[in-house]
C-alpha cells in the first residue's frame, strides 16, 4: 500500500471479525485490522470507540468473545501480556509504568535481568545490553540515569526501549505524543521511522490527527465499536478523517469566536518562584484568550499555580480589576474569581473515587452548605444543570468520575470551575488526551466564557491550539516570559524558535491596551 509494502505479504498482525461485550455494552463488533511488516498503522476514534478494548485484546489483557487473531500468519490465542510479549507484541502505555527509583537500564530489564549462577545479577551485562539497545534505537540516554529525573519524553523512550528489548515485531503505542513537546515528538518520530526501517510494525493510537500524515502509513478509524474503514494516511485530508470518526462534519477544528476586548481583569507583575519561574509579568483582559506556549518544563504550569496560590511565590503581585490582591491559597483565588483547570486532571483536577456531583460541587460547596450541612437538592440541581449544559455523558449524578471517559472528566473539571463564576480561567492543557468532539466542545465553552466577559489564559503544548484560539501568545523559556506577541505576529516557526531559546526574547511591551 505504502512504502513498498506489497499487498499479499504476510501481515504482522491480523485481527478478523473480533467482537467483545461487557455487561451492558458491546465494546467491539466485528472489528478487522491488519498491520503489515514495517508499517506504522494509526488507529483513531473518539473515546469509547473501542480503541482501548482492541489494544487490550491484542496485548492479551482481555480476550475477545469471538473472532480470530493472527500474528505473522499464525492463529494465536493471546491469554496474557506475557504471552503477547512472547509472541513479539509489546505495548507502551499512555500512563507510563516505570519504577522511578531505578535507573534506565534496570527499568528496561526489570524482571528479566541477565543473571549468573545463584540468581546473582550480571550487572556489567545488564548495562552493556542496555547501552547497546539504546544506541541501536538512537536514544541518547545514559543507562545509569535514574528514571525519576527524566522528562516525560525520555521516560517514554525508556518504555519503548523496554518494549523492544523483547525482540518485538509489533509495538503498540497508546497516545505517545499527548504529553510531548514539538521537539520531543520529532525525536520520537525519528525513532519510530528507524524501527520501521528495521521491519518493526507500529500500532499507533492517537488523538492528534494533524501528526498522522507525517508519521503513519495507514489509518484505521473506529467508531462505536466498529471499524469504519482503513485509509491512506498521507492522502486523506483531516476533515475526512474527522467525518469518519464522529459520523458528521466538523466545520472548524478551532471555532474561535471573536468578541470585543474589554478592560484588564488580571495582571501579574514580577511573579517569581526561584529556580522555577522568574519575573513573569503579563495581563489578561475581558473577552480575551491569551495563549501560553513553551516547552515542557518552561514554567508555564508553575506560573499558573503561583497565580492561584497553589505554590508559594517568592516575589510578585497580582492585580485584579486594578486592585492588588494577595492570593495565598486556592480558596482566595476562587473568591477573587480566578479558576485553574489544572494540567493533569486525574492528579490535580478530579477526586476520582467520588461521584460526578461531588466533584462538580467541590469548589463551591459552601454555596450549598448551611449549618455545615450540604443541601442535597440544591446541589443536585446544580449538578444536573452542568451535566446537561456541558453534555457530560454519565448515567447519573452518583456515577464515579473514575469511570468516565477523558473528555467527560475534563468537562466535570470545567463544570466545577464554571460553578464558581470565575472572571479569569486558566486552562492548563485542557484538551490533552481527549477526543476531537470533546475538544471542540471545550473550545466552544471558551468562546462562550469570553463572550460573557471572562478572560482566559490558555496553556497548551499543542501549538495549533494556542495559535488557533488565542488573541495574544505568550512564550515561556526556562522559567522566563520571552515573548508577548499579538496573534498576527505569532507564526508557528517563530513561537517554536522562541520557546526553544533559538530566538532571543522579544519582550518589549508586556502590557497591551
Amino acid at each position, binding site marked *: 500500500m505504502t512504502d513498498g509494502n506489497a499487498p499479499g505479504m504476510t501481515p504482522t498482525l491480523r485481527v478478523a471479525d473480533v467482537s467483545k461485550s461487557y455487561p451492558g455494552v458491546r465494546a467491539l463488533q466485528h472489528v478487522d485490522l491488519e498491520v503489515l511488516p514495517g508499517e506504522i498503522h494509526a488507529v483513531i476514534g473518539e473515546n469509547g470507540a473501542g480503541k482501548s478494548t482492541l489494544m487490550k485484546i491484542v496485548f492479551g489483557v482481555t480476550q475477545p468473545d469471538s473472532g480470530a487473531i493472527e500474528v505473522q500468519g499464525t492463529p494465536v490465542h493471546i491469554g496474557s501480556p506475557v504471552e503477547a510479549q512472547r509472541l513479539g507484541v509489546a505495548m507502551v502505555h499512555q500512563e507510563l509504568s516505570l519504577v522511578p527509583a531505578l535507573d534506565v537500564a534496570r527499568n528496561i530489564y526489570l524482571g528479566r535481568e541477565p543473571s549468573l549462577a545463584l540468581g546473582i545479577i550480571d550487572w556489567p551485562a545488564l548495562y552493556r545490553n542496555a547501552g547497546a539497545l539504546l544506541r541501536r534505537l538512537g536514544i541518547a540516554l545514559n543507562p545509569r540515569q535514574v528514571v525519576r529525573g527524566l522528562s516525560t519524553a525520555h521516560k517514554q523512550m525508556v518504555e519503548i526501549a523496554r518494549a523492544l528489548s523483547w525482540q518485538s515485531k509489533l509495538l503498540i503505542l497508546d497516545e505517545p505524543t499527548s504529553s510531548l513537546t514539538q521537539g520531543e515528538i520529532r525525536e520520537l518520530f525519528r525513532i519510530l521511522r528507524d524501527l520501521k526501517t528495521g521491519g518493526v510494525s507500529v500500532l499507533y493510537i492517537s488523538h492528534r490527527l494533524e501528526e498522522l500524515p507525517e508519521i503513519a502509513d495507514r489509518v484505521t478509524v473506529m467508531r*462505536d465499536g466498529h471499524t469504519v474503514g482503513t485509509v491512506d494516511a498521507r492522502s486523506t485530508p483531516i476533515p475526512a478523517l474527522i467525518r469518519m470518526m464522529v459520523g458528521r462534519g466538523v466545520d472548524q477544528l478551532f471555532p474561535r469566536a471573536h468578541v470585543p476586548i474589554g478592560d484588564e481583569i488580571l495582571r501579574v507583575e514580577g511573579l517569581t518562584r526561584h529556580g522555577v519561574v522568574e519575573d513573569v509579568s503579563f495581563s489578561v483582559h475581558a473577552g480575551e484568550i491569551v495563549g501560553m506556549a513553551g516547552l515542557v518544563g518552561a514554567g508555564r504550569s508553575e506560573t499558573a499555580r503561583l497565580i492561584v496560590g497553589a505554590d508559594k511565590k517568592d516575589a510578585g503581585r497580582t492585580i485584579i480589576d486594578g486592585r492588588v490582591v494577595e492570593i495565598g491559597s486556592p480558596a482566595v483565588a476562587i473568591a477573587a474569581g480566578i479558576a485553574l483547570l489544572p494540567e493533569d486532571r486525574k*492528579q490535580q483536577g478530579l477526586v476520582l473515587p467520588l461521584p460526578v456531583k461531588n466533584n462538580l460541587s467541590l*469548589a463551591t*460547596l459552601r454555596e450549598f452548605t448551611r449549618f455545615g450541612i450540604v443541601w442535597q437538592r440544591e446541589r443536585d440541581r446544580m449538578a444536573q444543570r452542568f451535566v446537561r449544559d456541558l453534555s457530560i455523558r454519565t*448515567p447519573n449524578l452518583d456515577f464515579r468520575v473514575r*469511570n468516565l471517559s477523558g473528555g467527560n472528566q475534563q468537562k466535570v473539571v470545567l463544570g466545577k470551575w*464554571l460553578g464558581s463564576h470565575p472572571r479569569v480561567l486558566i486552562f492548563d492543557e485542557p484538551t490533552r488526551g481527549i477526543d476531537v468532539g470533546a475538544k471542540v466542545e471545550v473550545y466552544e465553552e471558551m468562546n462562550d466564557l469570553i463572550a460573557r466577559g471572562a478572560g482566559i489564559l490558555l496553556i497548551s503544548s499543542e501549538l495549533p491550539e494556542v495559535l488557533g484560539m488565542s488573541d495574544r501568545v505568550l512564550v515561556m523559556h526556562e522559567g522566563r516570559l520571552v515573548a508577548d506577541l499579538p496573534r498576527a505576529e505569532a507564526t508557528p516557526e517563530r513561537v517554536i524558535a522562541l520557546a526553544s531559546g533559538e530566538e532571543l526574547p522579544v519582550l518589549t511591551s508586556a502590557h497591551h491596551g
Partner: protein
Amino acid sequence: MADGQEPPAFSAEAQVGSDVALSGRRSRLTQFLLRYGIVLALVALGAVFAWRSPVFLTSENLLQVLLQASVNIIVALGMTFVIITAGIDLSVGSTAALSGMVAATTMSTGLPIVGIAVSWPVAVLVGLLTGVLVGFASGVIVTSLRITPFIVTLGMLSVVRGLTLIYSGGRPVFGFPEGFTNLAGTIGPVPTPAIIAGILAIISAFVLRFTRLGEYTYAIGGNEEAARLSGVPVDRYKIAIYTLCGAFAAVAGIVLTARLRVAEPNAASGYELDAIAATVMGGTSLFGGEGTVVGTVIGALIIATLRNGLNLLNVQAYYQQLAIGLVIILAVALDRFRQR
C-alpha cells in the same frame, strides 16, 4: 460569568460514543456482593456459631456481642474518618487510655493540676478534652511538618502511652461514683455502651454523608491535591478530623473505664489494630476516598461475633489467633478486589 448567567448548552447532536458504559462495569450480583458482602460474612459467621452453640442466638448473648463491639465501634468510627482521608491514627489506644486515666484521676483527686474536686460529668468532659487535645496535636504535626500520618501517630502512640504512665505513676486508679459506672450499665435491656456507640455511629454517618466536613473528608482522601486546588482548606480539615478521632478515642476510653471500674495505664493497648481491622473490613480503603460508617460498624460486629463465638465454643487460644487473622485477611482481600 460575573453576572451569573448560565453557560449555554452544547450542541445537542454532539453525542459521541458510549464511553461511560465501556469502562468495565460489573454485574449486578457482583455489585451486590461488593456492597453487602461484608453483611453476608457476618451472617455466615453467625450461622456457623448458631449451629455449633445453642447459646449464640439467644437475645442475651446477641446483646452481649453488641456490648462487646461497642468500644471498638467508637474507636473505629474516628478511625474511619481518618482512613477515608488516606491517613491513619495508630495512637487511638493510647489516647483512650490517657483520656480514661485523666477522667478517673479527676474523679478521685479533682481537676488536673489545680486539684479542685468536681462531679463525675465534669471529669468525663475533662477526659474528652484530653482526647481532643491529643488528636489536635497529631493533626497539627501531620499538617505542619508534612510527616506521614503513620509515622506521626506511631510516635504519638508511644508519647501518649508514656504520658499516661507518667501521669498515673504507672498505677491503676479505681473507685468511681455510681453515676459514672452507669455509663456501662443498661437502658432497658440494651447496654448503655452500645447505645452510645449507636448514637455516635448515626452522627458519624450523617456527618460523612450530609455535611461539608464529610464531603471534604472524602475529597481529601480521594485526591488531596485536587481538593487543595479546589479551595478546600485541606490542613484545617485534616486537623479537625484527627481531633475528631481523638475525641472518639476519648469516649471509648471513658466507656472502657466505666466498664472495668478501673483506669489502667496499660489499658487499650493494641486497640488501634482492632479499630483498623474493623474499618478496613468494612470496606474503607486504606488509599482513601472510600468508606462508610455502616461498613465499619459491621466490621466491628464481625470481630466481636468472632471472639464471642470462639469463646462459646471454647476454642483453644492459638486457634483463636489463627481464626481472627484469617478473617482480617479475607476482608482485606475483599478490599483489594473492590479496588479493581
